[in-house]
């Protein structure tokens, strides 16, 4: 190395140590061989820059160089070997994360098979499946089977409270790895079919419950369906359409062991066929109550 180290770094002879460090950083960022592994020219330049910085970056050595006690090569080290020289040949640090998802590509696996490269080791890729669940199966959990394109079956455990759009990961059930690489995962995307009477909001269940005129006026005990089976509930006297009652803990199980609630909206339903008794009674009643008063209609 014969070039003047000040020229190599592009600094003046009277530059401060700080300016020298700044100049080195600027050049090293651009030229470092491990950050530019394909650029041979950068590697040569970096060696020069790094030798120059070795000399000038150290205030003592710089002073001795300035006094002429050592020459430009004074700081030259034995040929340095860069990390890329080892990493690219494969070491414990080499990572396949950048291409692991190509592992099941036909062309790649054919080439690897023909070359008989025992050294190639790749994780198998993940496979995505779709699973449509009944509303209640998603809420109560259980086991389901998926039939794979090759006819084999895959058991999937559905955790209680599974939501639509949730993805279940089955470790090691994806494509096999190449070499002794581990297999990928199966990702099961869950879709939940709507239910005839239940709707779900978060971990709560909502249901519209028809009640008779008599039950609404006098109150009473009624049977209410919940995802875990029917229960008996008391309708208070004088309950209106739209009244919402809560059945605590009859909703969806959560991961932490707690449970959401079921909300029961009452809906007064008259008998389907006109009933003379009822008509007679209402005529006799003859109330003057106007439920539309507030609407100013």
């Amino acid at each position, binding site marked *: 190395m014969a070039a003047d180290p000040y020229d190599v770094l592009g600094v003046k002879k009277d530059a401060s140590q700080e300016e020298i460090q700044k100049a*080195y*950083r600027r050049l*090293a*960022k651009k030229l*470092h061989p*491990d*950050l530019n*592994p*394909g650029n041979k020219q950068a590697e040569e330049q970096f060696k020069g820059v*790094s030798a120059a910085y070795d000399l000038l970056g150290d205030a003592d050595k710089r002073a001795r160089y300035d006094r002429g006690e050592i020459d430009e090569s004074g700081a030259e080290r034995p040929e*340095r*070997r*860069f*990390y*890329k*020289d*080892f*990493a*690219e*040949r*494969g*070491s*414990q*640090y*080499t*990572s*396949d*994360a*950048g*291409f692991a998802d190509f592992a099941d590509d036909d062309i*790649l696996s054919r*080439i*690897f098979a*023909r*070359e008989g*490269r025992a050294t*190639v080791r790749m994780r198998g890729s993940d496979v995505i499946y779709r699973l449509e669940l009944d509303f209640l199966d998603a809420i109560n959990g259980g086991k389901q089977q998926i039939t794979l394109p090759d006819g084999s079956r895959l058991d999937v455990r559905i955790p209680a409270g599974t939501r639509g759009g949730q993805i279940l990961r089955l470790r090691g059930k994806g494509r096999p790895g190449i070499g002794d690489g581990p297999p990928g995962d199966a990702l099961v995307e869950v879709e939940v079919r709507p239910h005839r009477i239940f709707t779900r909001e978060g971990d709560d269940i909502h249901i519209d419950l028809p009640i008779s005129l008599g039950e609404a006026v006098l109150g009473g005990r009624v049977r209410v369906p919940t995802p875990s089976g029917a229960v008996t509930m008391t309708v208070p006297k004088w309950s209106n359409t739209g009244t919402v009652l809560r059945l605590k803990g009859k909703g969806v199980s959560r991961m932490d062991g707690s449970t959401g609630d079921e909300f029961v909206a009452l809906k007064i339903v008259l008998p389907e066929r006109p009933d003379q008794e009822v008509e007679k009674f209402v005529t006799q009643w003859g109330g003057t109550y106007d439920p539309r008063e507030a609407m100013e209609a």
Partner: protein
Amino acid sequence: MEADEFVVRAKIDIQTLDTWLQSGWLAPHRHEGGTRYSQADLARAHLINDLSDLGVNDAGLPIILDLVDQVHGLRRLLRELVSAARSRDAQDEAG
């Protein structure tokens, strides 16, 4: 080489080496007789030093190391693919 020689050649002190080992930045092979450092470990240590000189902090370092490892893995794969394609070309011409 053993740890005492390694720290001298990597220009670090033994505490720094411990930190790097704990952070997983260096993963030398361990044998029954103790830990042996390879030339690859040394080159990686120089790279960590260079990155610190460039102003990369402890939070950024593992990210860069991981990306550098990925790039090297990809370059290695690319090299194998190129050589596989070349040998197939040769076979095709011969056949």
